[in-house]
């Protein structure tokens, strides 16, 4: 792998015809691997990277049905945060945020991490009380959070309208909350994994599994059979389909989550501003576009497109908080198929099929978890036992009843 540096940009920039080498090798699959990762999104690529980097596994393949990072990894709104209520979640997501903080150096790829802070608003006295409890729990979890007064919010985000129909009574901020460039995260992991010998195979759909006595022996793909004893599913919205081919039923519902961007304008927003009550969040990308999102369309869907009623509600909510954006036009709107789990906590670790591992149930928040998701799944695959950080996230929790109910506890705004 040719390292990227200021000097390499200078050197290639001076040439009349820059000769940038391909960032990763797109290869045809071999007949057997030590581990096969299904899904070439952020989680799959990161898992392959840490298998090679941390555990020295060399014969690893990432099989992607379409193109690299073409699913939710390229459709999200690029937010990383760790302001979670339950200790299990906080430990995992904060590990992920810590990995994001050094990811550009780790991957030798600028992921453009910008820790501008994530600001959550409260629109009533009671919501503010709940938020105080939430912010306090986050501090107890060893994660940064601060309660802010309306005046402090106005100072931080001067364009905000605090006098909404339900006036803003306060809020709290995690200052380490960040946005980054999602394509760079996908490409960075792909490039670094490829350099360590991981095979990245695009246009290769897994159509079935070779199972013997409840153990994985290989996968069937549109590009032939591959023998392997370790398979990790990291396919987000299509987890139920793939798991069904291995005889498993999952507690997952696939829905469309939409997002949109405005035309680019000069820098005007300082934070990622989020309101659970009016259900929207907005930040400004480095290109100047306002990136906004809100709730998912709450019915089963694999259409990868969002409904218009929700789009209207989303834009209306944004304009309520920032009336100054009324004249802006939307540039693009799109959706991804998200895998919602019953307790809005991911499903990670072992399955009843030996050698089949699952990384799913991210719902509306998988992007922030990419580095830690990859790190912990790599450990889980190598040791055939869940990494300590994801022990609470196992598929078996639905039968034991030990749910990690983030949706109810933290009022997670999507």
């Amino acid at each position: 792998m040719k390292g990227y540096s200021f000097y390499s940009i200078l050197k290639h920039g001076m040439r009349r015809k820059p000769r940038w080498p391909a960032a990763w090798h797109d290869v045809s699959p071999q007949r057997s691997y030590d581990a096969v990762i299904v899904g070439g999104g952020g989680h799959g690529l990161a898992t392959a990277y840490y298998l090679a980097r941390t555990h020295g596994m060399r014969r690893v393949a990432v099989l992607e049905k379409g193109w690299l990072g073409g699913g939710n990894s390229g459709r999200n709104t690029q937010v990383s945060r760790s302001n979670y209520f339950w200790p299990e979640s906080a430990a995992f997501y904060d590990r992920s945020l810590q990995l994001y903080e050094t990811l550009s150096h780790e991957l030798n790829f600028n992921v453009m991490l910008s820790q501008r802070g994530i600001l959550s608003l409260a629109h009533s006295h009671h919501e503010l009380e709940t938020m105080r409890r939430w912010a306090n729990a986050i501090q107890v979890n060893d994660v940064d959070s601060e309660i802010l007064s309306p005046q402090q919010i106005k100072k931080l985000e001067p364009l905000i309208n605090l006098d909404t129909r339900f006036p803003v009574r306060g809020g709290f901020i995690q200052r380490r909350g960040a946005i980054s460039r999602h394509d760079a995260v996908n490409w960075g992991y792909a490039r670094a994994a490829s350099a360590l010998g991981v095979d990245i195979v695009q246009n290769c759909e897994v159509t079935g599994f070779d199972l013997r006595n409840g153990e994985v022996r290989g996968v069937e793909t549109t590009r032939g059979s591959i023998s392997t004893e370790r398979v990790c599913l990291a396919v987000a919205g299509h987890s139920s389909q793939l798991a069904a081919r291995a005889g498993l039923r999952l507690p997952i519902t696939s829905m469309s989550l939409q997002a949109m961007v405005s035309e680019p304008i000069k820098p005007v927003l300082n934070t990622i501003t989020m309101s659970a009550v009016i259900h929207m969040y907005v930040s400004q990308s480095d290109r100047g576009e306002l990136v906004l999102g809100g709730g998912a369309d709450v019915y089963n869907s694999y259409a990868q497109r969002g409904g218009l009623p929700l789009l209207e509600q989303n834009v209306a909510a944004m304009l309520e908080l920032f009336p100054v954006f009324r004249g802006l036009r939307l540039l693009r709107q799109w959706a991804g198929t998200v895998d919602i789990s019953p307790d809005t906590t991911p499903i990670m670790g072992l399955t009843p099929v030996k050698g089949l591992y699952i990384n799913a149930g991210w719902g509306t928040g998988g992007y922030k978890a990419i580095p830690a998701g990859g790190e912990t799944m790599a450990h889980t695959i190598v040791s055939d036992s869940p990494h300590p950080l994801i022990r609470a996230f196992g598929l078996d929790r639905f039968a034991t009843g030990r749910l990690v109910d983030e949706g109810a506890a933290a009022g997670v705004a999507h």
Partner: protein
Amino acid sequence: MMQLQCPYCGVRDEMEFRFGGQSHITRPSPEATDAEWADYLFNRDNLKGVHAERWYHGFGCGRWFNVLRDTSTHEMLGVYRMGAPRPALPGKDGETP
């Protein structure tokens, strides 16, 4: 925007309705094991293709009904009342790839 055919009120916009998840899930007997109970509570078919699902006409007649809908195209393929068996859809049943 989706439009749904309420069997009592006719065709209305999706905003009048609330989604109620997969249809025809049967509650197991009190003797069910933890695994059977978890399967009933949490596991879903989550089909890509024709999906039998319940909808509630909250801003209308306030009644529940079943819909057959393709989850990959949002095409409405049939409507039937609660308690009625799922109608057959010749040539359309099964998952789309």
